């Protein structure tokens, strides 16, 4: 029977990461985290997790590498088009009633979801009155998001998703293609604030009208899910909206009573109680 050595090593490494660099992954769901750490260990060529921890403590260059492995996220523009279609058809009419809007894309990773929202808001004539906050813990991903350059071979999927989401324009209006890359227009970033923010350790901010945080909560354990959803609750204005991933749910968190299901299948919630 295999022993539990590696599990001990993992817990020690997470503790080291927190004490040395204040990156707190201790509340991440262990099963996925374990896979990611084993992959990092193999790719970075360490014999054991402990050896990787030793390097992490003494060489700051290890930090971004490891954080990259721990937070890697692959997304698409207009992923799950029906989600964006529902935002467009059912949430936007509510948002139109406000003179100014704040939208938070939490865990924006390399920016695909952010650009989807900015394009949708432009198409619906809301961009000019909106401030978008795009946050992530992974600085490299955030830099990528700010750059807005994606492989050209992903654009076909993005374009099809955009069309299915009820897009009123052509996605090609927003990027220029050069060599094998698509570079998204700077104008899409005019109303965006990029910021390094952790759902684990940082506080709530703003009176948001819409928060979209998709496929981030699944990586958290229940305590951390409770914290993050509590943070969203505190950051939302009355009757404001929270969208999460297609297979995520508020059902197993302690804040489920503070929200009502606005669009059940699309996992869009509306803040219903509390101020």
């Amino acid at each position, binding site marked *: *029977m*295999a022993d539990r050595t590696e599990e001990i090593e993992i817990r020690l490494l997470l503790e080291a990461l927190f004490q040395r660099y204040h990156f707190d992954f201790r509340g991440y*769901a*262990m*099963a*996925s985290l*374990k*896979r*990611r750490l084993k992959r990092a260990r193999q790719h970075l060529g360490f014999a054991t997790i402990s050896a990787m921890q030793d390097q992490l403590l003494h060489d700051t260059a290890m930090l971004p590498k490891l954080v990259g492995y721990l937070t*890697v*996220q*692959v997304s698409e523009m207009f992923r799950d088009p029906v989600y964006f279609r529902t935002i467009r058809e059912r949430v936007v009419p509510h948002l139109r009633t406000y003179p100014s809007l704040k939208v938070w894309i939490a865990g924006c990773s390399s920016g695909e979801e952010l650009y989807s929202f900015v394009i949708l808001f432009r198409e619906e004539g809301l961009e000019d009155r909106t401030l978008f906050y795009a946050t992530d813990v992974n600085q490299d991903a955030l830099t990528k998001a700010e750059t807005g350059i994606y492989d050209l071979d992903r654009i076909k999927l993005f374009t099809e998703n955009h069309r299915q989401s009820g897009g009123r324009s052509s996605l090609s209006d927003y990027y220029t293609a050069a060599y094998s890359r698509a570079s998204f227009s700077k104008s899409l970033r005019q109303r965006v604030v990029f910021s390094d923010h952790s759902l684990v350790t940082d506080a709530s901010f703003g009176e948001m009208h819409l928060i979209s945080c998709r*496929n981030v*909560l*699944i*990586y958290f*354990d*229940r305590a951390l*899910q409770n914290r993050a959803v509590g943070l969203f609750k505190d950051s939302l204005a009355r009757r404001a909206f929270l969208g999460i*991933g297609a*297979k*995520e*749910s508020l*059902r*197993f968190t302690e804040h489920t009573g503070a929200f009502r299901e606005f669009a059940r299948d699309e996992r869009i919630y509306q803040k219903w109680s509390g101020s």
Partner: protein
Amino acid sequence: MNGPAPEAIVIGASAGAFEALSSLLPGLAADYPLPILIVVHLPPYKSSLLTQLFRTRCAIQVREAEDKEPIKPGVAYFAPPDYHLLVEDDRRLSLSGDEPVLFSRPSIDVLFESAADAYRGGLIGLVLTGANSDGAQGLKAVVEAGGAAIVQSPDSAYATAMPEAALRACPEARILPLDEIALYLREVGAR
């Protein structure tokens, strides 16, 4: 049967999965004492259909797994399309959007390895018909953790590659045709 009492069953299947599962799941009684976690490779638009179809044909409950859902006996959980399904140590389900493993998401290896970590010797791993090698490493992990491994006999399988790969990685696995696997599952539940 020796070893620790079984606590959960994991099943992986690919090409031919529907027919194979049809000879296993409908035979289980509503009060079946173990949870069953299942990964099937299917194009996303077909996967939710799978849950619906088995729901109408089975006495046990059949659901698509939800993130952080507590695992309950007598329920068959299917991995949702385009997500990995994992088991946490506190016996809850987790989903992940991490990259595909062997071109598959959900991946049988990912489910089996995490379930082996959580259930140790209390796990039964079952690899059925399929045309790729997913599940082989996972089944090995089940055995290494002290669990039981069963592979559908290749000559009774619609596609042989997956059971053959599982047997190469895990020569100690029991090889059974589908009808005997069905019997085995019922016996394990009657223990």
